[in-house]
């Protein structure tokens, strides 16, 4: 166990993984309860467009991913406020549309290579010190905003209309929530990859929900599961040379199945 920390890249990867575990599980709790789970998948694919643009123009893919994910999140939220009945269709359109666009941009850039692969599925080797710093700063800000307004987000998730009639500015908070989530997703793609980050946001909360606790306890449980999965997943990824994102997601899936079984009615 100690041995793998002799490598600096593993230290960075673990630090990044722990930051992502915290961000994904806490924001994921609000997303799941808000019934926005598919939003995570869609935004992750939009972030991939950002990565592709980054690869094409040769700038940092992390930054372009944040920008494109944000634009996509706001556009989706704007469209959803008009076409409430078709909100899942809007997500589907953005998801496949983003993927198509990303593939075209990547092929233009001539970058169908390991670099793209690492953004799709995550690669602990690719986490730089600069990445960790970016995650720490922007992840920290995202988490602070989330915690500052957690009561508003919670109330809206429970009952949007009553929240609105009690003076909570629902539309503004919906935009704020997708903004935070877009940033967190874009930050996460180094470690977990665009195709797998949705799982890390959604599954820990769904696993925690099986224990039927109040909201505060459910968030703590989700956080615990998320940290456990990232730590176990990354360790096995190191020792068995498996892709980190997939190993983390398989671990959290096991946590979910165990939770489901021991809490079955």
């Amino acid at each position, binding site marked *: 166990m100690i041995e793998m920390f002799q490598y600096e890249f593993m230290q960075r990867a673990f630090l990044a993984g722990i930051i992502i575990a915290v961000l994904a599980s806490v924001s994921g709790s609000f997303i799941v309860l808000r019934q926005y789970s598919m939003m995570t998948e869609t935004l992750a694919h939009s972030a991939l467009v950002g990565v592709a643009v980054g690869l094409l123009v040769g700038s940092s893919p992390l930054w372009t991913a944040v920008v494109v994910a944000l634009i996509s999140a706001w556009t989706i939220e704007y469209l959803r406020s008009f076409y409430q009945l078709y909100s899942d269709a809007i997500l589907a359109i953005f998801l496949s549309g983003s993927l198509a666009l990303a593939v075209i941009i990547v092929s233009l850039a001539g970058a169908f290579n390991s670099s793209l692969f690492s953004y799709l599925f995550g690669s602990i080797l690719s986490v730089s010190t600069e990445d960790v710093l970016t995650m720490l700063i922007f992840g920290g800000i995202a988490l602070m905003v989330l915690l500052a307004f*957690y009561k508003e987000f919670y109330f809206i998730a*429970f*009952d949007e209309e*009553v929240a*609105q*009639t*009690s003076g909570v500015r629902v539309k503004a908070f919906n935009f704020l929530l997708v903004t935070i989530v877009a940033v967190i997703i874009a930050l996460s793609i180094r470690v977990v990859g665009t195709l797998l980050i949705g799982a890390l946001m959604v599954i820990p909360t769904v696993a925690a929900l099986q224990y039927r606790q*109040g909201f505060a306890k459910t968030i703590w449980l989700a956080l615990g599961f998320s940290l456990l999965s990232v730590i176990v997943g990354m360790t096995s990824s190191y020792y068995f040379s498996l892709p980190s994102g997939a190993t983390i997601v398989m671990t959290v899936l096991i946590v979910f199945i165990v939770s489901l079984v021991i809490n079955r009615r």
Partner: protein
Amino acid sequence: MTFDVPVFDVKNLMLTINEQTILENISLQINKCEYTALIGPNGGGKTTLIRLLLGLQKADSGEIRLFGVVQKDFQQWDKIGFVPQRAAQVDLNFPATVLEVVMMGRTAKRGFFGREREEDRQAVEEAMQKMDVVHLKAKLIGTLSGGQRQRVMIARALASKPEVLILDEPNTGVDIVSQQRFYTLLRELNQEEKLTILFITHDIGVIADDIGRLFTVNRSLLTCNDPKEAMSCSEMSNLYGIDAHLLHNHHHH
């Protein structure tokens, strides 16, 4: 002494959806401390009218003033407590204890960083006491009975210390004993706490003795200033296709 402006002042409200008139020329005033009921057949526009009052939906024309302020400029939403129709049918798997749900009522008033202040805790405790749900506070909302859940939702509305309480058919799925207890409570809130109450229902019989005025809505609206005058009200009810027997029976026994 200041002159009391009406809590709700509605003038000539019109709403058409897909070329179908939903509400037509609605005007009504509700004053402070009044206990009023809004009745009407299903699909007659009761819930829509309430949604317009609360700003959840927009009318085509007409004016709504809340506490004398034009609705779009109104800020003090914590003065209005709303218990929606589906209060008894919340998502049973939602991770929320009774305490967490009642605390939601303080969201608009909470301190910086969502911190609970002493006054928040006090208001929540008081609201739970009034609705007799203190002993349930650690329980999950999904494990309660329909009647208990209804009381929790009202406690949440009371936690913001509102001056008005709007209840939309709150008795769906609640047993008779809980209902009786609930009406007594509403009467006390109105008489002792001076709360303005607007009660939306299709079953007026049980509260006919308590309410001061009755509004009937079936596309357009009529005001019945004395619900105890069963005759005039039943005429009105017939006109609007509402079964008035409940009113009659109640008063003749």
